[in-house]
């Protein structure tokens, strides 16, 4: 009987540990990739990143966050009528935007400021490196 009680206690403790570790994992923010890319998901990402950076809109590639969890964002390469870059000597640092997952939630996150916006429809998977 004592052994059974001990085993029950052990099980309960282990379960507790496990669930506590799971909770911690769920609380942790991890780098992620998009689970099912589509045009709708791309549009949601574009809108979220634009909002994050105070832009009306911006172009994010259809395959963004499908292989890597980060993208760099730069000023549009404005050109003259002759096809030359207006500013061909750029000293601005590009911005880094990460895709992160926390629990079941998925966010685009500005690596510099930590600001983030949740993607309501896109599904994310933890990045496995």
């Amino acid at each position: 009987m004592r052994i059974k009680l001990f085993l029950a206690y052990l099980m309960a403790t282990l379960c507790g540990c496990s669930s506590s570790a799971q909770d911690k994992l769920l609380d942790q923010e991890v780098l992620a990739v998009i689970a099912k890319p589509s045009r709708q998901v791309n549009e949601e990402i574009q809108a979220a990143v634009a909002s994050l950076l105070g832009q009306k809109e911006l172009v994010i590639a259809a395959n963004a966050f499908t292989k890597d969890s980060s993208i760099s964002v730069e000023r549009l390469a404005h050109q003259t009528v002759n096809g030359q870059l207006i500013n061909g000597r750029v000293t601005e640092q590009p911005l880094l935007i990460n895709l992160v997952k926390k629990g079941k939630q998925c966010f685009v996150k500005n690596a510099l400021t930590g600001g983030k916006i949740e993607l309501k429809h896109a599904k994310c998977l933890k990045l496995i490196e």
Partner: protein
Amino acid sequence: MKRISNKLFSAIVAAGVLTLSACGGSSSTLSNTTKKEDVVWQAGTFINDSLLDNLCIGNLNGSALKEKLWLRSWSNDTYLWYNEIDDQDPASFSVSNYFTELKTNALTPSGKLKDQFHFSMSTEEWNLLNQSGASLGFGINYHFQQKDESLNIDREITVSYTDPETPASVENINRGAIIIAVDGVNVAIADDSDSIDTINNGLFPQTQGQEVVLTLQDLGEAETREVTLIAENVVSTPVQNVKTIDTDNGKVGYLQFNSHIATAEKGLVDAVTTLEGEGITDLVLDLRYNGGGLLDLASQLGYMIVGEATADKTFEKLTFNDKYPTTDPVTGRALVPSPFHNQTLGFNAGLLAAGQDLPTLNLTRLFVLTTANTCSASESLMNSLRGIDIEVIQIGETTCGKPYGFYPTPNCGTTYFSVQFKGENNQGFGDYADGFIPSQTPSFESEVQGCVVEDDYSNALGDEAEAMLAAALVYSADETRTCPEVSAGKRAFRPFIPNISDSAFILEDKRPQSVFFNNRIVTTKH
């Protein structure tokens, strides 16, 4: 905030608000006390431009005159050739017209305008951002040939290259393919605005999912084929086509470097690592479509090509006008030469973290393939390597000639680009406003040992038969430094684009410009 420098950009974005476009919101210290009429133009006298910041037309204390006087004072303070500006009374000019007057009209030794880089655009447009290399389209980079009836030249659109994993690559569209028709409109004979609109809309889509039917004549094919492309948000691959070519004199590496964008850092590191592993003894760097971008990437690439010979050497030193011999007038910092970077900078830290040692090829010479599209940071790379006595051999056409730069500066909703500095190499050379000119007998510093060769659309980039690469391979193998014969019509210097005489017949990308769509074609109705 007197001026907003490039360096501040990240911090501004970090604040979550792109305040660069702010006009009426910010005000100078005198804005509350400066009345609308209390400034006048007086020849040779300049008000401190910070006192005129954002005193805009329509503001309580602003006026067109104050905007113009701000431009005048700012130019007088920071323009590289401020003492070549004709100090004109602004009264008879609009603000934008007055800005166009605030530049030198001096000519380069070859006779072109020394300052061809004087621009302005709305700050809202200037502040637009995109994912590095991303744009809406098909992944095709076009070459437009102008129609010139006097020379019996037809209008022609040729594919100069495509990017992998794009609609174009899926449809096996390759360099050299000629676009005969767009949505049924024949490119060569289109001669009315509806036809031109159809071509423009087809080549430069406005929405994802937009379809275009291209009639193509692939390289070497007599027959045409039709492909339907669906526009999507594609991303360019700035470093492509990395390969090693076995020659009698050793292995020659080749890489196509199209743009100094953030993702190129990893591309270049991977390419150089591969070529280092192959044990190459020469490198052909294809910069023919590289108009520049992140200057630090050029510095890193310089190190990766040369290695330790760059140690303690200047990659580039900025020089401003003679009012600022030792300090940067915009940042206020002391002028310090920038080095060749020997570590990663983490432009996209998710792909490649900062602080890692860069690979190096330890070469003592470099072949560069160039056209008039080779510009800015690409020219800076050439100049910096020449500055440390690395032999740079130029194959192709004269580069664009832009040793200059500026801090884009906003005022009253417009961002102004006025040349403020020149980049000089380790030997203090930066005078290549006429471009770097390939020559078998160079006699000026801006002439570079090499060969004049036209861009060859009849072969793939990286193909040993492609004219520029072929010339580099011959040159590298031959101690007599032989160049291919240049036909009478082929010259080292080719102007970019003829003047546009009829805007109704321009094929152009009217969207905010991106690296995919870097040309336009003009036609005049005859």
